């Protein structure tokens, strides 16, 4: 057997007494792909932080060897010099700089006084071609979608002399098309002898891509197996320690009258020439889960923003709720009319990180707890009623938290998401909009969220779910709308619907 490129032996890492990694060992040869699977919070990211030098040598136990040499990194710079590049789940791009500037950030070409702009431009253009991103190197990152930004990150890594590329959930925010490009790129790297560690919740990708699959659960190394020996269910079984009967519980819904009717929704950024939402009309019925599919940038999120009153450009839409016309100009008005939304970007729009879980949950309904004291409104919160409701919802939605007072940033993504859903439910919505509800969430929590969606619908709530994960769209929705470049392109019933049908509709020009 050839010498492995990377070997990590018995890595143990503790945070203030709690073991996050409990003796994990992995091995990898050049040109191979190793996938690491595990629920969120299982220790995958910690392992990668140890490997990439975020946690410096000495802060963990165990040994790391790279190309046969022991690694004693004191920071990311050391491991990058070795050729280990990590692309994080959270993108590390400077939004107000161009693609070119980001790619060369920290290792600009040229002398101290004069940058070699031409050379950098050429290189960037070639790199962008390699990742099939058809934009100018001078485009600002801010102007790109999340998926495109991810591709820039990969281009940035390719620009470094990479021997081992670590991708931490690279596809969680990509559309299918972009995922294909990414997987192609990784295959290409493999052929060049570059090794890759791939962390993903998307097991089909994992199996398609990897030579080896390592599973970590609660910091323990459950096992590493050849990908050819495994099925998705095997991996899930190893990850959760139990077999999930089915990923998408299908339940029949009792669908009622039209609750929401949106006609001629139109949205355009100031100064743009192409509308992001172009004359979209649709209806939503009581007790229905309406799935909205489409590529990233097809206007799905923007359409939801029009309904929730938070689109940041010019927009118009005539909205009727239960037959009555509705004017929504702000999030407050949306909530007041019974529309709640779980936003796509959890960190940015969903949580107040340093506030407690409970305070996050009650944030939308503080008004309801205000008590008047002897007829005078002092604006004070009835804390006993507040904590009672918070505790009820935490247990109802199975939010796993040590205490309602724990800052919400300490929770895993899945539990944060459940807390945000709890916040929405407290407003007593008739319509719940979920934008990418299961992004970056582990399998167990996903399942619980699906169950919850079914339960809500049974109570008469109507749900609009925007999702890039086609199995989820098909598995959960009653009806699916497909958007393409701002317009509504198709409508499907869930019965007999396949991923290919949606993709064809979402990608192809014309009908």
């Amino acid at each position: 057997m050839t010498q492995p490129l990377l070997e990590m032996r018995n890595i143990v890492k503790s945070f203030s007494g709690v073991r996050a990694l409990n003796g994990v060992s992995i091995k990898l040869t050049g040109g191979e792909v190793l996938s690491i699977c595990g629920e969120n919070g299982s220790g995958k990211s910690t392992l990668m932080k140890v490997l990439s030098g975020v946690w410096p040598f000495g802060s963990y136990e165990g040994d790391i060897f790279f190309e046969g040499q022991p690694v004693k990194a004191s920071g990311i710079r050391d491991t990058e010099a070795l050729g280990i590049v990590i692309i994080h789940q959270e993108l590390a791009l400077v939004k107000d700089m161009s693609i070119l500037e980001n790619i060369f950030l920290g290792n600009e070409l040229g002398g101290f006084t004069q940058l070699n702009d031409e050379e950098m431009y050429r290189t960037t253009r070639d790199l962008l071609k390699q990742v099939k991103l058809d934009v100018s190197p001078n485009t600002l990152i801010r102007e790109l979608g999340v998926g495109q930004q991810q591709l820039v990150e990969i281009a940035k890594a390719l620009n470094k002399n990479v021997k081992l590329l670590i991708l931490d959930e690279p596809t969680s925010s990509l559309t299918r098309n972009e995922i294909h490009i990414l997987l192609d790129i990784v295959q290409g790297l493999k052929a060049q002898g570059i090794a890759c560690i791939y962390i993903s919740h998307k097991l089909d990708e994992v199996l398609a891509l990897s030579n080896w699959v390592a599973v970590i659960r609660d910091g323990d190394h459950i096992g590493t197996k050849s990908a050819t020996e495994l099925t998705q269910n095997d991996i899930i079984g190893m990850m959760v320690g139990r077999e999930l009967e089915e990923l998408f519980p299908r339940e029949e819904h009792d669908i009622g009258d039209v609750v929401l009717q949106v006609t001629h929704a139109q949205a355009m950024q100031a100064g743009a020439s192409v509308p992001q939402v172009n004359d979209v009309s649709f209806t939503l019925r009581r007790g229905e889960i309406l799935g909205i599919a489409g590529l990233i940038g097809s206007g799905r999120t923007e359409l939801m923003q029009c309904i929730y009153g938070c689109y940041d450009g010019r927009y118009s839409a005539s909205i009727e709720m239960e037959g009555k016309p509705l004017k929504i100009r702000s999030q407050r008005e949306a909530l007041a009319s019974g529309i709640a939304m779980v936003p796509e970007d959890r960190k940015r729009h969903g949580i107040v990180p340093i506030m407690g879980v409970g305070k996050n949950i009650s944030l939308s309904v503080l008004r309801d707890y205000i008590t008047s004291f002897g007829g005078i409104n002092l604006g004070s919160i009835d804390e006993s009623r507040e904590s009672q409701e918070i505790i009820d919802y935490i247990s109802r939605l199975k939010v796993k938290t040590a205490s309602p007072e724990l800052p919400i940033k300490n929770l895993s993504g899945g539990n944060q998401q459940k807390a945000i859903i709890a916040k929405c439910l407290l407003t007593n919505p008739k319509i719940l909009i979920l934008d990418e509800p299961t992004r970056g969430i582990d399998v167990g929590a996903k399942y619980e969220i699906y169950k919850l969606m079914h339960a809500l619908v049974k109570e008469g709530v109507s749900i609009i779910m925007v999702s890039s994960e086609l199995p989820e769209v098909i598995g959960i929705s009653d009806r699916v709308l497909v958007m393409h470049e701002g317009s509504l392109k198709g409508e499907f019933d869930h019965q007999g619907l396949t991923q290919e049908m949606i993709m064809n509709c979402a990608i192809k020009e014309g009908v």
Partner: protein
Amino acid sequence: MFKAIKTSQLQLLAMIAAMLIIIVFFSVATEGAFISPRNISNLIRQTAIVGVLAIGMVFVIISAEIDLSVGSMMGLLGGVAAILDVWLHLPIALTILITVCAGLVLGLFNGWWIAYQRVPSFIVTLAGMLAFRGILVGLTDGATVAPTSSDLSIIGQSYIPSGWGISVIGVLCLGLVAQVYSRRKARVNHGLENTKAKFEYTKAFIVVAVLLGLLVSLENYRGIPTPILVMGGLILLATYIAKRTAFGRRVYAIGGNIEAARMSGVNVEWNKMWIFGFNGMMVAIAALILTSRLGAGSPSAGNMAELDAIAACVIGGTSLAGGIGTVFGAIMGALIMASLDNGMSMLDVPTFWQLIVKGSILLLAVWLDVKTKKTNK
């Protein structure tokens, strides 16, 4: 043991420790003069103005904004109060009312530009810092407005009759202990874990002991100074607003993540404007105390006071990134700054040294804060 102590508690302990070190150091250096009843009375009267400013400022900083106009605004409002009193001979109640309303209006004016017009608060209040001072000099023609009436002097210079003082402190102490008790009981009712009873009651009793000690000391001199009573009332009010009201909760949410607050239906603009409105009222009260103490409205009054207020908040653990901070911390910060001023003046430390020491303390406090947060992660 350290694991059990939360970062916020650690910060509190550090602040108390710093305060103790300062007290002990100056007491030894001045051979006890520092803790004489007369000096303690002086010291906490000196704290009053910056303390009141810090109460307003802490809300501004928690919401991730800044207010640089506070010093000039205090000067202007103090000048307005002096003009109302000296030139127009208005009754004291009306002077107070008009000054506080003027403070509210100026604060809301700042807040409107920041919240609704989206001009960064640094710029809006920098503009205010210049313009308010300009208005003050224009109004007074650059001259001092004096002497103020004896009524106005009450706010800054008088003392509370001892019977009143003792009963106020007594009620406060009882209220505090009762509050800790009822809070613990409510938490138990909701099945929430309580911090150790010993810890919480010890904390409460230490506060009670400090209050009583202060009372004895002040009564030994001339009684509780009126401005301190005003500040105490404002501390209670502001703590109540921060901890118990929906407004306070929203201030923290806005500072913690403004986008998430907006998505949750919080009226971000309205709340922001009123944070500055509240701050303006605090500035007005500080201005009244200042004018009353000086017995005059001076065109240079309150110069650079905004920096003292910001420093007090920051030393008191308020995060300039927003979302973190307490009224109590800000007051402690103000007290630490005032103690340094007072102690160094008693030791005849040259002014330039005083500035250097204060600057260093500010840097050190924030550095320590950053350090402890990092290791606690």
